[in-house]
């Protein structure tokens, strides 16, 4: 294929307004909840009010007698067909993988676990009938604290397994041959910084609650679900329930956000699937927000013990991480793999010579954790970026200077890290310089000094976060090495219609990312067709039979490349046909701006559309040429994608009340080549907002009995518009070297970068008062408490040597 060098009017790189918007701004969106089918029954789910209990008696009979109710079932009624919910990432051979019945049968292990389901002619009757179901629970001790859960003689979440330890997993650079021994580094260190950081539990809180509709009446059982992963869902339904894969069709219609929270195969999907099969009628389940908070998986919830070894000049000599990761009560689709995604990121952008990561997964009687925007990488980035600031403080150096001493120079790429990854490209100097300029770093430092001198009750803090991440999940071979149950490729097909219009089928499954727009831009450039002549089809296993869906900032960096490759195949296939139409040798043709033209004589030309029509009629094709221009391509990345950037945050901290306000925020991100800058900026804005949410506002809290105290948006605080500042965003552009688009992932970058930038700024404001850490979220009370403790001489955030 001849890639045209002439990019005049190129779509890639343009701020194309989104195709998706017209239905979304007029209320003509197809949410799963909007779907209604003839004879459809509405489901309501009874959930456990207890964190841990044995079900000694359950009687759904009284519910069956109520008006409108068609059926009511408990776990044991469908034990034979409901299947066990799958975990696709058994991270070690020894890992404990407990049974996970969608409807609990004998025992409940977290508050909100489904125990019975009612099907009724309308939703109200179904909900009303829940109150008639009789359940007796025999309370069992609730296991909530991870460290207590690992102690000898601890009460058990899964008594049959004899331990609450799910797995342990170690990455050691000396053992792996990727670096030195961290024990030795610690013994030789001039400075050792030890810190404990708590990654609080978060709730993804996508705006569209999950819903599912199942129609069992056709040849295929069709499931519509508010999911990020229709393809994986179909496969898992087939594998877990025994229904043949080709007898299942899954559709993700318009999906209202996910952030990893809809990267799941859910009890509710399985319950609806089983219910529809059992009743032989379509069913629909729509969760309330309160149910979503309890039952949709949570994120983060890790305890990080960090040991950073360095020389007094700021050079880091080793890093050791001991991690406890809360699994919750069961393992979701990638629950145990989430901390592993962080394992490769603690060394971040730095040239650490020695590294050890030692992770233990722990069961507790809480809602399961799983992917939430960044999944493992925000936790890692937070810990290292906080610790680099602590090192700077210990050494009396500027935090940026400490980073400069240790980061990989732009002339050192490709660079193989102590964790064994090879970063293909990056320029940390350029992004940092640009960020400092936009931020007015020096002026803010001067103001900070003035406020410190004058004992201003409102102190100024400056927070730095220089991050990278591994995304574009993922090279299949690496996933295999990590024992993940699937590959990491992505697929795309291009269908040339007789009129020259194009249908594109993608295996990615957007839920707000704008793939319909961005993919159209790519195809328009590759095929030389107008942007509006491209239709992007996705999220239905009938049209898109193959794909690995959308998460891990993979859609463009993997799926986009598959699309480019499929387009190139189309261009190649049409070439002999164009040559035939032009009565010339294919070798004399070049493809320029959507036209095949004879090299040197651009006058005579045939468009791809001409070829498509010729193929449609097939009246006059060259001998032996198949009448088909369609093509598909599957791309398995050779490497991860490594976006990076520098985020700077200035906070004002009211030392009287503890309130933190963000005064300015600058983000310079390098996501390689950009298809649609407007969409990229939007992803960065939203990502930063979610990272700020973790830093300042959000926390899922359980009481001592395992009840979720933050079960609504009254108590689980999402930032609203007045709570966030304007962000200054800019980019540097260091293309990915691994594939023709040069693009890197962007979906998670903002979230990964912003949390440490904000917390570093909070701590920086308070450091002269003796504060060296504030636990997240940095609520006014915690800030106030940290100041008070420092004044009283109490230590916060671990020892310092």
């Amino acid at each position, binding site marked *: 294929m001849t890639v045209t060098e002439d990019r005049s009017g190129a779509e890639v790189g343009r701020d194309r*307004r989104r195709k998706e918007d017209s239905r979304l*701004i007029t*209320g003509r969106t197809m*949410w799963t909840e*909007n779907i209604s089918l003839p004879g459809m029954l509405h489901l309501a789910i009874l959930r456990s009010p207890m964190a841990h209990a044995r079900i000694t008696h359950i009687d759904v009979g009284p519910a069956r007698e109520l008006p409108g109710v068609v059926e009511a079932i408990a776990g044991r009624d469908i034990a034979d067909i409901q299947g066990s919910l799958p975990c696709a990432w058994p991270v070690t051979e020894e890992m404990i993988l407990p049974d996970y019945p969608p409807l609990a049968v004998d025992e409940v292990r977290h508050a909100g676990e489904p125990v019975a389901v009612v099907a009724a002619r309308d939703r109200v009757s179904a909900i009303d009938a829940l109150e008639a179901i009789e359940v007796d629970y025999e309370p069992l001790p609730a296991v909530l604290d991870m460290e207590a859960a690992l102690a000898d003689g601890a009460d058990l979440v899964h008594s049959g397994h004899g331990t609450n330890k799910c797995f342990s997993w170690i990455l050691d650079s000396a053992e792996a041959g990727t670096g030195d021994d961290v024990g030795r580094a610690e013994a030789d260190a001039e400075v050792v910084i030890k810190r404990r950081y708590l990654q609080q539990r978060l709730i993804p809180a996508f*705006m569209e*609650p999950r819903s599912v509709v199942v129609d069992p009446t056709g040849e295929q059982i069709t499931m519509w679900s508010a999911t990020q992963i229709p393809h994986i869902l179909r496969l898992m339904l087939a594998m877990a329930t025994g229904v043949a894969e080709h007898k299942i069709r899954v559709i993700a219609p318009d999906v209202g956000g996910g952030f990893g929270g809809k990267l799941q195969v859910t009890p509710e999907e399985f319950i609806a699937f089983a219910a529809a099969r059992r009743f032989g009628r379509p069913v629909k389940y729509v969760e309330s927000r309160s149910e979503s908070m309890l039952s949709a998986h949570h994120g983060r919830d890790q305890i990080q013990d960090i040991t950073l070894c360095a020389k007094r000049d700021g050079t880091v000599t080793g890093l050791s991480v001991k991690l406890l990761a809360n699994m919750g009560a069961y393992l979701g689709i990638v629950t145990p793999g989430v901390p592993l995604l962080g394992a490769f990121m603690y060394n971040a952008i730095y040239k650490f010579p020695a590294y050890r990561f030692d992770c233990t997964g722990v069961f507790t009687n809480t809602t399961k954790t799983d992917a939430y925007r960044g999944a493992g990488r925000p936790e890692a980035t937070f810990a290292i970026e906080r610790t680099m600031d602590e090192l700077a403080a210990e050494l009396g150096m500027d935090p940026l200077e400490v980073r400069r001493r240790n980061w990989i120079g732009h002339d050192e790429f490709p660079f193989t890290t102590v964790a064994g990854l090879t970063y293909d490209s990056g320029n940390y100097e350029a992004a940092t310089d640009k960020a400092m300029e936009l931020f007015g770093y020096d002026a803010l430092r001067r103001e900070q000094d003035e406020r410190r001198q004058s004992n201003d009750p409102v102190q100024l803090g400056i927070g730095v976060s220089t991050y990278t991440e591994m995304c574009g999940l993922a090279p299949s071979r690496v996933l295999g090495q990590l024992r993940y149950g699937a590959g990491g490729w992505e697929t795309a097909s291009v269908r040339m219609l007789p009129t020259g219009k194009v249908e594109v089928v993608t295996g990615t499954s957007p839920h707000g990312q704008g793939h319909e727009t961005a993919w159209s831009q790519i195809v328009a450039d590759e095929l030389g067709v107008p942007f509006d002549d491209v239709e992007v089809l996705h999220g239905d296993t009938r049209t898109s039979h193959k794909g690995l869906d959308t998460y891990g900032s993979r859609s463009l960096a993997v799926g986009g490349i598959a699309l480019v490759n499929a387009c190139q195949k189309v261009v190649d296939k049409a070439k002999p046909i164009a040559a035939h139409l032009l009565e010339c040798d294919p070798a004399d043709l070049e493809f320029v701006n959507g036209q095949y033209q004879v090299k040197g004589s651009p006058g005579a030309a045939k468009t791809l559309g001409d070829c498509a029509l010729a193929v449609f009629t097939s009246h006059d094709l060259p001998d032996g040429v198949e009448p088909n221009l369609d093509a598909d391509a599957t791309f398995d990345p050779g490497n991860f994608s490594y976006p990076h950037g520098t985020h700077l945050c200035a906070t004002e901290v009211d030392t009287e009340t503890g309130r933190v306000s963000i005064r300015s925020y600058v983000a310079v991100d390098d996501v390689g080549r950009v298809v649609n800058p407007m969409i990229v900026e939007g992803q960065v804005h*939203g990502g930063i907002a979610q990272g700020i949410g973790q830093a300042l506002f959000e926390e899922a809290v359980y009481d001592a009995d395992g009840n979720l105290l933050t079960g609504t948006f009254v108590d689980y605080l999402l930032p609203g518009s007045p709570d966030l500042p304007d962000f200054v965003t800019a980019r540097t552009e260091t293309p990915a070297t691994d594939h023709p688009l040069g693009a890197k992932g962007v979906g998670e970058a903002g979230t990964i970068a912003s949390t440490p930038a904000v917390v570093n700024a909070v701590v920086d404001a308070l450091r002269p008062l003796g504060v060296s850490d504030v636990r997240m979220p940095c609520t006014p009370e915690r800030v106030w408490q940290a100041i008070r403790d420092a004044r009283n001489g109490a230590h916060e955030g671990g020892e310092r040597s």
Partner: protein
Amino acid sequence: MTHISMTVDGVRYDDDVEPRTLLVHHLRDRLGKVGTVVGCDTSNCGSCTVLMAGNSVKSCTVLAVQADGSDVTTVEGLAGRDGSLHPVQRSFHETHALQCGYCTPGMIMAAVDLLAENPDPSDDEIREGLEGNLCRCTGYQNIVKAVREAGAAMRTSGQQVPPAKPAERPETAAQEVTT
């Protein structure tokens, strides 16, 4: 059952409803107005915002019986009959003020209400004015921009906000009676 009558997006509907029926469920389940969505059960998220007698309300926190006799405008009634977008809809599109779009109907209706009261709000006033609407995708920055630009466009064009009442739109006065 209680008999109620309301005009929604220019069409009058007469229905018997259970008193406990929320306005948003009446709109969605009975009238088929599924453009308005439910995002929470505590009146926090604002996804269900509609105009009632020209004022923004959270339709999940209004009983259908309370809306008896009211004139309700949903996101589906904002565009002109010829499909021409309301300036707020247009600016949401132009400034990339939506990603997944779930909060968008409520956000747009809240913005329409805000601009009706304050046609030239500052950014802070926009942020305060939208405090009842949560968005998880955008970080709000482009939403603020959209509202600012919509306000400017409406001031320039003299556009009426909220949209003309049904009585002033005789072509939409057709009655639809459901039971």
